[in-house]
C-alpha cells in the first residue's frame, strides 16, 4: 500500500516527461528526419543555452524571485568574451571575463533584491536595461566577430565522435544542480526560503544570503551561457539574449515550478527546456509555416501544462 503510494506519487511527478516522450513519438512518426540520432543531439545542442539559463532561473524562482536580466547578461558577457577572444589571446581570459561579468551582475541583482529589499521584478528590469546599455556601449552597437579558432572550439568541439561539448557542459551543469538542490543543505535552504521566508529566517537560515546567492547563480550561469553562445555563433552581439529570460522562465514553469516559490524539481528544469526545443525543432523540420508555428506552439504549451496539472491532481 505504502509502496504503491510512493510509486504513484513519483509517476505523478513525471507527467511532463511522459508528455515530452509522446511529443517525441508523434514527431518521429511524422518525420523520419526528426527521429535520427544526430537530430536528438541537435536538440540538446539547441537546448543548451536556454537550458543553462533555466537552471539559474529555476534557483531564483524556487526562492520566490524573478530574474529578467539574464538575457542582458548573456549579451554583455558574450560581447566582452568576443572582444577578448580575438587572435592569440589565451581562451581562459575571455572565459573568465564572461563568467566574472555574470557573477558581478548577479551580485548586483542579489544585493539590490535581498539587502535593499527592492522588488525583484523592478531590480532585474532595471539591470536588464543597464546591462544591455553596457553591452551596446562596449560593442558600439555592432556585433563582434573575429573570434579565434581555439575559442570557437569551446562549444564547437565534439567528443566521442558525435557528442558536442556544448551538450556535455549543459548536462554537467544540470547534474551539478540536481546534486546541489537535492543533496546539500544549501539546496534545501533554497526550498525553505521559497516556501516560507519568514519561517526560514526564524529557523536560523540566513534568508538574505540565500536570496543573494541564487541571483549570483543565475548571473554566473548567464555569463557561462553568454560565453558559450559566443563560441557557438563565433561572434558576440549586443542584442543577443534579449527575450531569453522569458524562455528560461517558460522552461521552468512548464517544468512544474511555481512562480510563488518553493516548488519545483531539478528534472523539471531539464524537461521544460527540452519541451520547448523539441517543439521548435520538430516544427522547423516538419516545415510548418512560421505563422502556424505560433498557433501550434501556443496550443501545445497550454495543453501540455494542462495535462500535467490535471494528471498530478488525478493521481493524488
Amino acid at each position, binding site marked *: 500500500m505504502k509502496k504503491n503510494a510512493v510509486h504513484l*506519487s513519483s509517476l505523478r511527478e513525471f507527467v511532463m516527461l511522459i508528455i515530452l516522450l509522446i511529443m517525441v513519438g508523434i514527431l518521429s512518426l511524422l518525420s523520419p528526419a526528426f527521429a535520427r540520432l544526430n537530430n536528438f543531439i541537435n536538440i540538446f545542442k539547441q537546448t543548451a543555452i536556454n537550458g543553462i539559463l533555466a537552471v539559474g532561473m529555476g534557483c531564483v524562482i524556487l526562492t520566490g524571485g524573478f530574474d529578467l536580466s539574464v538575457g542582458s547578461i548573456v549579451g554583455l558577457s558574450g560581447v566582452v568574451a568576443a572582444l577578448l577572444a580575438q587572435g592569440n589571446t589565451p581562451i581562459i581570459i575571455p572565459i573568465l571575463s564572461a563568467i566574472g561579468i555574470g557573477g558581478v551582475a548577479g551580485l548586483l541583482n542579489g544585493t539590490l533584491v535581498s539587502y535593499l529589499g527592492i522588488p525583484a521584478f523592478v531590480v532585474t528590469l532595471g539591470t536588464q536595461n543597464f546591462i544591455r546599455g553596457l553591452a551596446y556601449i562596449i560593442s558600439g552597437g555592432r556585433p563582434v566577430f573575429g573570434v579565434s579558432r581555439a575559442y570557437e572550439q569551446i562549444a564547437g568541439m565534439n567528443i566521442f565522435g558525435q557528442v558536442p561539448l556544448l551538450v556535455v557542459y549543459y548536462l554537467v551543469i544540470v547534474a551539478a544542480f540536481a546534486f546541489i538542490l537535492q543533496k546539500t*543543505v544549501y539546496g*534545501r535552504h533554497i526550498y*525553505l526560503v521559497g516556501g516560507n521566508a519568514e519561517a526560514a529566517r*526564524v*529557523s*536560523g*537560515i540566513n534568508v538574505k544570503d540565500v536570496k543573494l546567492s541564487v541571483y549570483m547563480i543565475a548571473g554566473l550561469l548567464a555569463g557561462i551561457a553568454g560565453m558559450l553562445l559566443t563560441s557557438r555563433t563565433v561572434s558576440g552581439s549586443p542584442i543577443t539574449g534579449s527575450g531569453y529570460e522569458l524562455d528560461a522562465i517558460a522552461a521552468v514553469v512548464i517544468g512544474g515550478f511555481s512562480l510563488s516559490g518553493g516548488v519545483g524539481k531539478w528534472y523539471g528544469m531539464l524537461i521544460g527546456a527540452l519541451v520547448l526545443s523539441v517543439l521548435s525543432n520538430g516544427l522547423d523540420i516538419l516545415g510548418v509555416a512560421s505563422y502556424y508555428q505560433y498557433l501550434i506552439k501556443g496550443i501545445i504549451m497550454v495543453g501540455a501544462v494542462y495535462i500535467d496539472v490535471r494528471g498530478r491532481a488525478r493521481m493524488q
Partner: protein
Amino acid sequence: MADYLLELQGITKSFSGNRVLDDVTLRVLPGKVHALIGENGAGKSTLMKILMGIYSANAGNIVLDGQQVHIGGPRQALDLGVQMIHQELSPVLDMTIAENVFAGVEETKKCLGIFRIVDRKRMDKEAADALAQVGLHFAPAKRMRELSIAQMQMVEIAKAISRKAKLIVMDEPTSALTEKETDILFDKIRALRDKGVSIIYISHKLEEISEISDMVSILRDGRMIETRPTKGVRREYLISRMVGRELTNFYPKREVPIGEVLFEARGIGWKNRVKDVSFSLRRGEILGVAGLVGAGRSETMSALFGVLRRDAGDVYLNGRKADIKKPSQAVARGMAYITEDRKATGLNLIASIKHNITSVYLRLFTRRRLINEKNEQNAADKYIQMLKIRTESREKRVQLLSGGNQQKVAIAKWLAGDPDIVIMDEPTRGIDVGSKYDIYALMGELAARGKAIIMVSSEMPELMGMADRIMVLADSRVSGFVERKDFNQEKILGLQFV
C-alpha cells in the same frame, strides 16, 4: 424529532483514498450550543468544511430546517444563514479591519442614482461597533497585518457574530485567547443562543465545553462515537471517549533540581512594545509567561531571539554576553523558538512533514555534509510517533494536516536538535488533551535533562500546572514574578492588570 435545526446525515469523506469521515451523523437543536470534540485529526474541521461547502462529501446529506439542501460553496452556506469562524485564520492581511469584517457582504449605497457603491462610512462605523462588542477598540481602518494573532481572532469573532445567522460554527475560537477574551466570547454566545441561534462549538479546552455547551458530540477517527447532553458529564469521561484511554493527571509536572543560571535578559526593549524586560532562567526551570492579549509577550520573545531587532538590552548565556541580533545566531547558540503563529512563522506549508521536521537542524541529518535521506526519514518517523502526528505518510504536505497536527510539526522541528533553551509561545495551541499531556511530559523530560524552557501561554491552568515560576507582563513591562509555591490565580490575574 423533526425539529432539529441542522442534520448532517451519514457524511463520508475521503482524501485521495484516505477516509477521514466515516458515516458521520450530527444533529443540532435550535438555540443550543453543541460542542464537537475529538482528537487532532479526528475530522472535526473537515466535517464543518463540508457543511460550509468548502469540501464536498463523498456521501451523506445535509438537512437544514427540515429541508435537504445542497451546499455547493460557501456562498450558499452563508445565504442559508450558516456562518463559520475558521480554525485556520484567514484574514486578508493587507486590507483594513473593516474591509475584512465586511468581506463578501459589503454594504452599498446609491451614487448619482445609478451606481451602487460601497458605503465605506457605514461599514467603518458598523465594524467599529462590532469590534466594540468584543472589546476591541481599534480604528476600523487599521490594517489587519498590524494585529496580533489573538486580536485577529477577535476580529473573526466579531465578523461572524455581527452577521445574520441561524447557525454559527466556531472552530477552536479560543485557541489563541486568554480568559478575558474567552469570557467576552462566552457572553456573546449566550446572548446569541438566547436569540435562538445555534452554535457548533469546537474546542480542545474541555473546561469550556462544560461551561458553555448544552450538547456534546465526540468524534474519533472519523466516526461519531457519542452525542449527549453536557450537563453532568465528567471531563474524564469525555477524555476517555475521545482518546480511548484514561487520563487523570493533566499536568505531569516533574520535580527536577533547578541548576545554575543559563540565560539572562537585561533591559530588553523594542520600540514601545517591549519595555525594559529583565529576567533570568536556570537549568531545569520552566518559566511561564502570562499576560493579556497585546501585553507584548510574543514581541518580547521575538526580541530575545533576534526575530525583532532589539533597540535596548542584552542577553547573557552562561553568564556571558551573547551577540544575538538575528535568529541564526540564536539557533547557533542552542536556542529554539516555537512561534505563536505556525502558519506565518513556523511552518513551510507547501513542504512535507519530513522536510519541516528537519528544516532547522538539517546538518544533523547529513552524512559527509550531504543530506542523508534515511536519517531524515528516521527523524520524521520518530517525531510522528512521539507526538502522535496523524498522517498517512511523512511525505504529506503540512498544509493538508489538521490544525493540531500542524502545531505538532511546528514543535517537532525544534525538538529535533536538542536545544538548551526552548522558547514556546502558545505551544499547545490547537492540540488535543491527550497530546498536550505528551508535550507536557516532554517538557518535563527536557527540564530533567538540564534544559531551560520559557513557556508563554494564555491558558492559566497550563501555566500553573507546568511552570516553576511565572513572569507576568502588563502593558509591555514586567509587572511581577510569582514562584510556584505562591501560585494563585487571583494574584497572577491581578498582576496582569497593573
